[in-house]
């Protein structure tokens, strides 16, 4: 019977694929994991690297900074990734995990990313300080007697009369996102420090302070809008009273639709972030597994391509994608140590 023959063939194929399980492939292609913020830059470089050299184009996965570190530090060998991207520095715990598993990370700082608070072009212009951001978005703020109370502010004007008199409505990333981590650490914590009662608390009990500074309100004023920043921009276009939190590269690419709020008098512009004037910005990194250099072909060349002036320089192609380059001298120093594969120390 025909059908039984087909069945037999398919069963044979199934057997074949299961036996293939035994033969592990040696890898000749770089594997990159890590931060979704660095993903657009890393993929750009991977593509150019694949076109310019005879190596295969690296495979880049977007796993988030934390997830990338976990994979990266899990061990040495073809089964683990060669490079991980991070939108923050490696944590001490992660560095220790790496060391325990025999992984020596080489740190490469690639540039800065600004985090912007933006709204639709036809909405009100916003000029805000970090202190006001904290007051508008924190779960608990100090009341008039200095005791912590649930955030009472309903409109921006409640926070400070110079702000527009509209309901506080902010679309931002969920807690799993590196953008959220950085926003909380830089904008919220930075703002909380400016408030006297909290500054005093910080001196007395750092953990208690952090708990307050890092808690974002959950009463509907802050809406977790998912990891897709394009979606946030679409929602901002539809609702001119809402603000969104996302990376500078999205503001840059959508400058025709949304406008970034001025923070502490500085506009979120390329030059201001590069000069360090714009306060809500963070450094971006990638980490190379030193043990894989020379084993997986092309790692050194990939690092050289990434740290090339045409790539990460002021007129490089990453600047077109929204990466804010490091200052000239720092770029030179990082390139040198990266190309020498100098292991990092904590």
């Amino acid at each position, binding site marked *: *019977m025909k*059908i*039984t023959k087909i*069945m037999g063939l*398919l*069963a044979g*194929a*199934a057997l074949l*694929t*299961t036996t*293939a*399980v035994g033969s*592990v*492939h040696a*890898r000749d*292609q770089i*594997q990159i*994991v890590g931060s979704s913020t660095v*993903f*657009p830059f890393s*993929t*750009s470089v*991977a*593509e150019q690297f*694949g*076109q310019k050299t005879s190596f*295969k*184009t690296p*495979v*880049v*996965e*977007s796993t988030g900074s934390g997830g990338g570190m976990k994979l990266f530090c899990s061990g040495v060998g*073809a*089964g683990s*990734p060669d490079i991980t991207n991070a939108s923050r520095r490696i944590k001490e715990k992660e560095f220790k995990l790496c060391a325990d598993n025999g992984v020596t990370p080489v740190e490469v700082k690639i540039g800065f990313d600004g985090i912007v608070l933006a709204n639709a*072009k036809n909405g*009100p212009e916003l000029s805000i300080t970090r202190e006001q951001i904290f007051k508008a978005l924190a779960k608990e703020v100090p009341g*008039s007697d200095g005791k912590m109370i649930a955030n009472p502010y309903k409109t921006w*004007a409640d926070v*400070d*009369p*110079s702000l*527009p*008199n*509209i309901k506080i409505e902010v679309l931002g990333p969920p807690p799993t996102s590196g953008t959220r981590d950085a926003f909380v650490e830089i904008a919220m914590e930075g703002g909380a420090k400016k408030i006297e009662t909290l500054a005093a608390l910080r001196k007395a009990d750092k953990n208690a302070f952090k708990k307050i500074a890092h808690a974002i309100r959950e009463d509907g004023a802050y809406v977790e809008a998912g*990891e*897709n*920043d*394009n979606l946030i921009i679409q929602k901002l276009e539809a609702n001119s009273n809402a603000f969104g939190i996302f990376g500078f*590269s*999205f503001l*840059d*690419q*959508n*400058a*025709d*639709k949304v406008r970034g709020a001025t923070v502490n008098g500085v506009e979120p512009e390329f030059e201001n972030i590069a000069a360090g004037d714009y306060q809500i910005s963070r450094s971006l990194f990638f980490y190379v597994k030193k043990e894989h250099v020379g084993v997986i072909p092309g790692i050194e060349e990939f690092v050289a391509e990434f740290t090339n002036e045409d790539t990460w320089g002021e007129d490089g*192609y990453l600047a*077109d*994608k929204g990466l804010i380059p490091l200052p000239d001298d720092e770029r030179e120093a990082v390139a040198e140590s990266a190309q020498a594969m100098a292991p990092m120390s904590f």
Partner: protein
Amino acid sequence: MTDTTNTYVKTASLEERRSLQKKRYASERKFKYLGLGAILVSLGFLVMLLMTIVGNGIPAFTYNYVKLPIDLTKVDPEKPEKANYGKFVKSAIADAIPYMSDRKGKRLARGLVSGGAAIDVRNQVVGDVSMAGQNADVEVPVSDFADLYLKGLTAKPILTKPDAAIKVSDVEGDVDVTLSAAVFDEFLARVKETISSEASRLNTRMANLQLSLDNQREIAANSQDTLAVESAKKSITSLEAQLAGFKTKFDALIVRRNNTAAREVLDTSMPSLLLKVGGGVVKITEVEGMSAKGEVIIPLEQKEASAGEWQMQEILEAEENRKFSDKEVAVVDRLVAEGRIENRLNTIFFKKGASREPELAGIWGAVVGSFFTMIITLALSFPLGVAAAIYLEEFAPKNKFTSIIEVNINNLAAVPSIVFGLLGLAVFLNFFELPRSAPLVGGMVLALMTLPTIIIASRAALKAVPPSIREAALGVGASKIQAVFHHVLPLAMPGILTGTIIGMAQALGETAPLLMIGMVAFVVDVPAGIFDPATVLPVQIYMWADFPEPGFQQKTAAAIMVLLGFLILMNAIAVLLRKKFERRW
């Protein structure tokens, strides 16, 4: 119900029976309309969804290419891949757009051509070595923003041929424009409109400020708290200063608006006006009814033109609100007029893998990845699933053990797909040490997910075969296995195949289980086998939807159309199979 029937039998008169019948018919009609309504509503939503996707996706199937006179005489035909194509493309752009000669202009011109042009030219030359040594027109993709403009998706210029003669004071630099009739009036009115809306925006802001000011004044007057009073007083002074500043601005705007004939200086927040005169383009910077000041973007050949021989190009979208400047509009329009730009089928989209440049991104890598993954899924889940179904349905004794298995299979069908991904990570990657991102592993994980569907569908199909067939086969002396494989299985096959195809279609659209095993990745190279890193169609859609460049939005919709096409094809095959082999008893 029984009660009513009783009353009906006992006491209902003809009248009552009629009204009861009427009621029944009415409720039947109501039910019919409700059902029809439900179908219409869902059809409406479906049509809306498809229209948006198709409307967004269609533009991505074509792309605009620009012909550049590229000098390939220096390319060595022996080693065509070694030449510096970036330099060739750069100088070709300068040759094709000679009027953009300063550094800024050159940069702008280069920005109109795709960043991947050099790579594209290299691939063309490597594919056709006879091009080396020639000096020929080569077609390269334009940049994504230029493409969006050419497709009318960013700024839509309005072209008119005004009924007046024009005189321009010079052929380049800053110029004065004079007309024989007041044809700029209409445009001036539009500019005044934007001033008016700016004024009203300012007005609402002032009203808001006034509100806060009143608020603070009240606090200052009534509050017992000296600290609060002090801070309120401070904000009152600052608010008053702000308000006064706004008021002067507002008054100035109102004066400008009311004086309808007054000259206006244009800035980037206002509509743009370009004049195409005597072979060049002038961008207007100051305008009134009959005269204007402007800046030459493309040098003129003649300083004068009579009515009907020159064109006015208005772009209502303010320059700061679009990603395509007036200069870029002028240059691209010129290239179109020269016949250098052509809109044709986007072959890159169907032939290439992923890319970070929207104009170089293709769906083929994902299609091939999906194909390999589906082959593995089919090869594993179909034989296993059907065999399991045959055993459970035909051979297994009915006892506690088999009913536990049955319950578990039904449960598995409802397990969230991400769980299978976690299993794949733990077992296939960490234990068996299979390569990450490979279609082999993806296929294995999806096979696990599809198995319950296939088993359940196959069992239902086997159950539907009448017992008389089995009994007849056994009666003429066939063994049990002969009865099953020669008689029951062929009759159940259409049902089994339908179930399998539906399960496969489900697997084709799945991303969550692939996340954990590394197939949600940026893969440029088109995979050549089941061990190569690959991604699949739905993942490609998800990633394109997430990229910041606006050019990817059309790509996303187009990729959805491709995926939908495959799904419709698979479901159509399922329907056909059922139609062709279906038997009725």
